[in-house]
């Protein structure tokens, strides 16, 4: 049905019969024109570097070997250039084998961290978001005030919240340990252990991401027809059963989108890990995306290694998205 608007839409009005092809073009011309600016920007700024990155991952390109010639310019003097003896070359799958066998970096550690990180964050985002949304979807006094206040973290830039939480978690000067001590508990050396450090990062990211989830789910809740609840009540269901059999399935369209996007975003959530734990202790909380950052920006830039990280991340996420889509499709959801 949605074809309709474009039907009969010629560039120039006129009764002349045009060829079918021409009319197809006329019809889709609008659609393409409307998508074109976005495609153009994304193509230039994301797709092109992405393709380049994929190519680079099969080379040994770094900052120093990218030039064909090594030139040395002397101030007020001559420039002398010699061919670069170490010019980059294709290395096939070398980077991938290096990375996956742990020859360079700690791929499997990072992957494990990334999965734990993503799983924990998305799960907590979703569950807390769902819980708060269900509460806020009831009718009671002060609801809108709670709603406004609970969304505040969304308005805080990521690096600010990272700083704020790092502050709170500071083992010596942070409020959290100070409260623990006042309660008669031992202070925790948050960043000295892998999982406590990860915990601090997860808390920060959960704090940051719950409002979005909450609002999205709240929207989804309001689109569930009230009759469904009434029918379920007539069927003698308990509140929990209604939640389980009406709310959860009714939220599936919203959930499927936010979980898919949430997973992708969290997977690549760079600033929180970088600013809060900085990978401490001893790199044990690095995730794949911080690994790619370090390869790209720490010391001599290793473009090929960074690109390899990027391609592996991309591949993992594409596989995930495709599988996710397939599961959704089997349940009758499509996007």
């Amino acid at each position: 049905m949605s074809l309709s608007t474009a039907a009969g839409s010629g560039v120039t009005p006129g009764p002349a019969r045009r060829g079918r092809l021409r009319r197809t073009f006329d019809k889709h011309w609008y659609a393409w024109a409307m998508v074109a600016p976005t495609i153009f920007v994304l193509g230039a700024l994301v797709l092109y570097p992405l393709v380049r990155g994929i190519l680079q991952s099969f080379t040994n390109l770094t900052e120093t070997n990218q030039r064909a010639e090594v030139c040395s310019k002397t101030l007020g003097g001559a420039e002398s250039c010699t061919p670069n003896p170490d010019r980059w070359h294709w290395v096939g799958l070398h980077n991938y084998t290096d990375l996956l066998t742990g020859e360079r970096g700690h791929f499997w550690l990072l992957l494990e961290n990334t999965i734990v990180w993503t799983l924990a964050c998305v799960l907590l985002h979703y569950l807390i978001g769902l819980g708060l949304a269900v509460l806020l979807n009831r009718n009671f006094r002060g609801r809108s005030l709670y709603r406004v206040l609970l969304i505040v973290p969304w308005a805080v830039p990521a690096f600010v919240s990272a700083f704020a939480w790092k502050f709170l978690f500071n083992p010596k000067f942070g409020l959290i340990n100070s409260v623990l001590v006042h309660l008669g508990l031992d202070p925790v050396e948050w960043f000295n252990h892998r999982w406590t450090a990860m915990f601090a990062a997860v808390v920060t990211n959960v704090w940051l991401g719950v409002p979005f989830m909450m609002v999205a789910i709240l929207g989804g809740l309001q689109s569930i027809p009230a009759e469904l609840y009434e029918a379920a009540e007539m069927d003698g269901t308990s509140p929990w059963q209604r939640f389980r059999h009406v709310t959860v399935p009714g939220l599936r369209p919203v959930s499927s989108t936010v979980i898919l996007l949430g997973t992708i975003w969290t997977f690549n959530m760079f600033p929180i890990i970088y600013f809060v734990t900085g990978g401490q202790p001893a790199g044990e909380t690095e995730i794949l995306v911080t690994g790619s950052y370090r390869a790209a920006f720490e010391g001599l830039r290793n473009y090929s290694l960074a690109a390899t990280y990027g391609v592996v991340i991309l591949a993992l996420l594409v596989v995930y998205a495709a599988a996710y889509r397939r599961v959704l499709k089997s349940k009758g959801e499509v996007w």
Partner: protein
Amino acid sequence: MTRKPRGRDERSPLSSLALHATLVVATTIALFPVVWVLLASLKPQDAIQSTEIHLFDHPTLENYRRVLFETSFPHWFLNSVVVAIFTMVIGISMSATAGYALSRFNFPGKRGVMWLFLITQMFPVAILIVPIYTIMANLGLIDTKASLVIAYCSVAVPFCTWMLRGYFDTIPPELDDAAALDGLGPFKTFWYVVLPLARPGLAVTAFYTFLTAWGEVAYAIAFILSDKNLTLGAGLQQFVPRFNPQWDLLTAGAVLIMLPASLVFYFAQKHLVAGLTAGGTKG
């Protein structure tokens, strides 16, 4: 909520207490770090990071005075406002048109476009910065606000398009038909009929694009060279030199950076739920 008759909606005092207790705890957690930064910003520099933790410690507005009058903060602020607003306007224009096309037309390449949007979210930004810099350099856009606006649009538009497409899906297509009969072409239909109806969705998109641009650091650091052209996110990094982060300036700056975001948020929040309702549903 008008789901149930009023009488049945009343809770027992106990469950009412539990409800409010849960929400109060959640709200406290949501606000606490913000409040803590605010409190810190009122302390003198040496008291901000200290073994002795007080809520207040010689409260003063000195930090704010210094940020506002002794640094380029006002410049950065203005730059951020300009960049965020342009990102918002351009980002919304792009994602609204693209979202409309994806919602209404069944054109060849549509599925590819949806995948493309998803894939752009998957590639780490760190790897994109250097190539995008080169592109910007070729366009002569280095050290301009335009470079940031374009880059931020590429970050925010895929999600916004996705969301607006969902929102447009909820607007009955008969309205488009009616508009066609009333003499509007697709572009005019979009402008006169669909856009006015999509206001809640657009509000969310506006909020989202604004925030994307407002607090961004990585691109701003890379593309902006001169101090006067920095945006807030990048500018505040100046208070984190190699040693001795200047907590006084940083906390005060952080509070000031949150203010306009909250303001935008305050105006958008009415529409937030309604906008995401439709957008999220159809996602």
